């Protein structure tokens, strides 16, 4: 008690508030500075704590000594009424310059002390850091785990794209990347294609901006994808009558699932049953796993094959572009009039469909 009394009365007649951080350390702070924090102010007024070392105010867990120091610096400057707005702004701009880790900690600490102006300042700074960065960059900056599956990454934004072409291509791409990831885990080597997470998002967003940008991008990367798929194809080339259609065959697997149209599914079931390998088609689940794709470990490709693949990619992409309007029409009709089965097997339709027949 005697100590407490002594602690309060200081020679220069200033009053101090005693604060204790979660690690146990106690410090004294000038009253006017500490009272600038609403939480401390409330504590002092309601409980009367803080007037001595033994009765120090316990600060919330999120406030460590380093952060407390920063916050008190902020309070010390801003509680002085004489500063002009410009001076305050200049101080804030300089104050906020710190690494991201500290910025997050400071935001958290300021929030627990209910210091709104500082929370506002730090959240704006965080927003500025996030702005304009790709997801990859943001993850790196904030050390976020990249723990979403490809599907999940596409899902929330998928609704924003309305072009079915884009949806199809995104699925193809997503499946490919998932497959690559799995192989990467198995092989423990760096794969040719990095899972470029930001790419799919960029694509999606670029589709918000206009289909063409995204489309051409997808086209460009297709070569790699197909390379791998076709290599496998070499092994199972026996049942295939034409390489051309088989190439499309693989590309087309997701096609039915892109349109969860019952009629379409029925039609496919009908055609798929002709073949030995029915895959998952009858179930029409959009599943990224297609058993026949997995397991390929052959990495070399002769140049001739490469060329052919590139040509096929172009071909497919072109067909995709030109056929879509037609197909859309077919599908939309199919929804009310069940025309799909008829058009499925007609030659007039597209090569794409014949691929299914061959399976």
């Amino acid at each position: 008690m005697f100590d407490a009394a002594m602690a309060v009365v200081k020679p220069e007649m200033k009053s101090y508030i005693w604060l204790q951080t979660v690690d146990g350390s106690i410090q004294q702070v000038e009253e006017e500075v500490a009272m600038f924090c609403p939480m401390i102010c409330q504590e002092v007024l309601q409980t009367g704590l803080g007037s001595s070392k033994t009765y120090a105010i316990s600060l919330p867990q999120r406030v460590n000594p380093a952060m407390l120091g920063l916050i008190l610096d902020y309070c010390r400057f801003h509680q002085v009424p004489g500063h002009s707005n410009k001076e305050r702004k200049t101080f804030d701009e300089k104050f906020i310059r710190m690494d991201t880790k500290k910025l997050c900690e400071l935001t958290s600490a300021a929030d627990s002390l209910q210091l709104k102006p500082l929370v506002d300042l730090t959240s704006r700074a965080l927003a500025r850091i996030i702005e304009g960065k790709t997801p990859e960059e943001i993850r790196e900056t904030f050390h976020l785990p990249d723990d979403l599956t490809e599907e999940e990454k596409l899902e929330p934004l998928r609704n924003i794209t309305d072009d079915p072409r884009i949806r199809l291509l995104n699925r193809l791409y997503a499946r490919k990347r998932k497959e690559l990831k799995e192989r990467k885990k198995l092989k423990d080597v760096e794969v040719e294609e990095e899972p470029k997470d930001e790419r799919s998002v960029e694509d999606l967003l670029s589709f918000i901006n206009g289909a063409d940008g995204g489309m051409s991008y997808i086209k460009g990367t297709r070569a790699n994808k197909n390379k791998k798929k076709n290599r496998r194809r070499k092994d199972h080339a026996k049942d295939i009558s034409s390489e051309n259609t088989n190439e499309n065959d693989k590309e087309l697997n997701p096609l039915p699932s892109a349109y969860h149209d019952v009629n379409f599914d029925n039609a496919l079931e009908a055609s798929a049953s002709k073949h030995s390998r029915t895959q998952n088609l009858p179930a029409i689940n959009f599943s990224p796993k297609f058993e026949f794709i997995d397991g390929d470990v052959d990495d070399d490709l002769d140049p001739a094959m490469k060329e052919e693949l590139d040509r096929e990619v172009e071909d497919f992409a072109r067909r995709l572009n030109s056929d879509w309007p037609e197909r859309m029409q077919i599908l939309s009709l199919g929804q009310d009039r069940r025309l799909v089965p008829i058009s499925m097997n007609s030659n007039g339709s597209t090569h794409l469909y014949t691929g299914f027949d061959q399976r």
Partner: protein
Amino acid sequence: MRREQPRSPCLTDVEPDRISCLPGHVIDQVLSHLSIREAVRTSVLSSKWRYKWATLPILVFDTHCVSVASQDHMIIKNKLLRIIDHVLLLHSGPINKFKLSHRDLIGVTDIDRWTLHLCRKSIKEFVLEIWKGQRYKIHSCLFSCQSLTHLELFNCWLKPPSTFQGFKNLKSLDLQHVTLAQDVFENLISSCPLLERLTLMNFDGFTNLNIDAPNLLFFDIGGKFEDISFENTFQLAVVSIGLYLNFEINQSRLHGGSSNLLKFFVHLPHVQRLEVQSYFLKYLAVGVVPIKLPRPCIDLSYLSIRINFNDLKEISASLCLLRSSPNLQELEILARPEEQTVLLTHTYCWEDVYFSCPVMQLRYVKIDGISGIKPELDFINFLLLHSPVLERMTVKPVANVGLELMKELLRFRRASGQAEIIYLEPS
């Protein structure tokens, strides 16, 4: 294509993720400083971030946030519709502010659907700007939304249902290029008891403004009206009125008619800033212009007047205001250019006009658009003679004004020893 350093797949990140564990309301704050597009993008960062954006309290859809690179309006419109639909559907929690102001979204009826959805989400601030086309009729569901505190509409038509009881929590109302009927307007203003700010620009459908708003602090209007009066507006501090209509004064009103000036200031005892724009001074000058107001505007510190120096009545009205504002510090005089060429039909005697001159506390005076005619010079002379604490006077004439104006300005006596007169080149 940026390549990462090769690293073994079993390497775990030792750096902790500090941002994801910030409280929800803080993350909301961070994301609300980003455009809607950037905010939604965070959903692919990690599993924790998948739905962090979905609790954003502020949703802004404007030409910046959602840019669609296409020339076809239909495509842009459709994309925009889908985006808004999906964001609203995927959103969870209350929405505090919603702003829709996109160049290509013109009068689509989907806005009605969104309005209904927002009303169910306890929307507080609703901003709708229809850039082009016809006035958009606001859906009646908005009128039963009692959570609104700020309503901002541009190019809309308001026709509330007969059951409309007002917005009980509305503090700020901003209507520009709107159509509403006379009774709708009056009912709207008087049934919003908490209204503090009212902005009204370019309106039609009503011509009499009767502002009954006990909590009103800020009032800014510009449009065509016949009559304006205040009621119970004792807290009104900032008033800016522009009458965009050069009305013809009814001759019978000229003689012995009640002064608009008197009527106007009856309910504005505490006005601090007043802007009299376009032809509003002409309106105020209707009737017998008093020498000074019965109750001085002691809080008035800033006054801006658009004046026609060829109209004696307007000069009298502005003098009345100056006599009644003992604490006025800043004055802005803008001459109405189109009428400057018409010379005063009758000459006047200085003493007849400039009598009962008060000692003014003016510090800063700004004069714009004058051409050097006698009434203008007299007025400036008057200001200089009766402003002992004047610090600066800026004079900016219209183009093609000779040196005579400057010569006259130099000659005038000044009551203030430290007054600077700054002559600005006409732009």
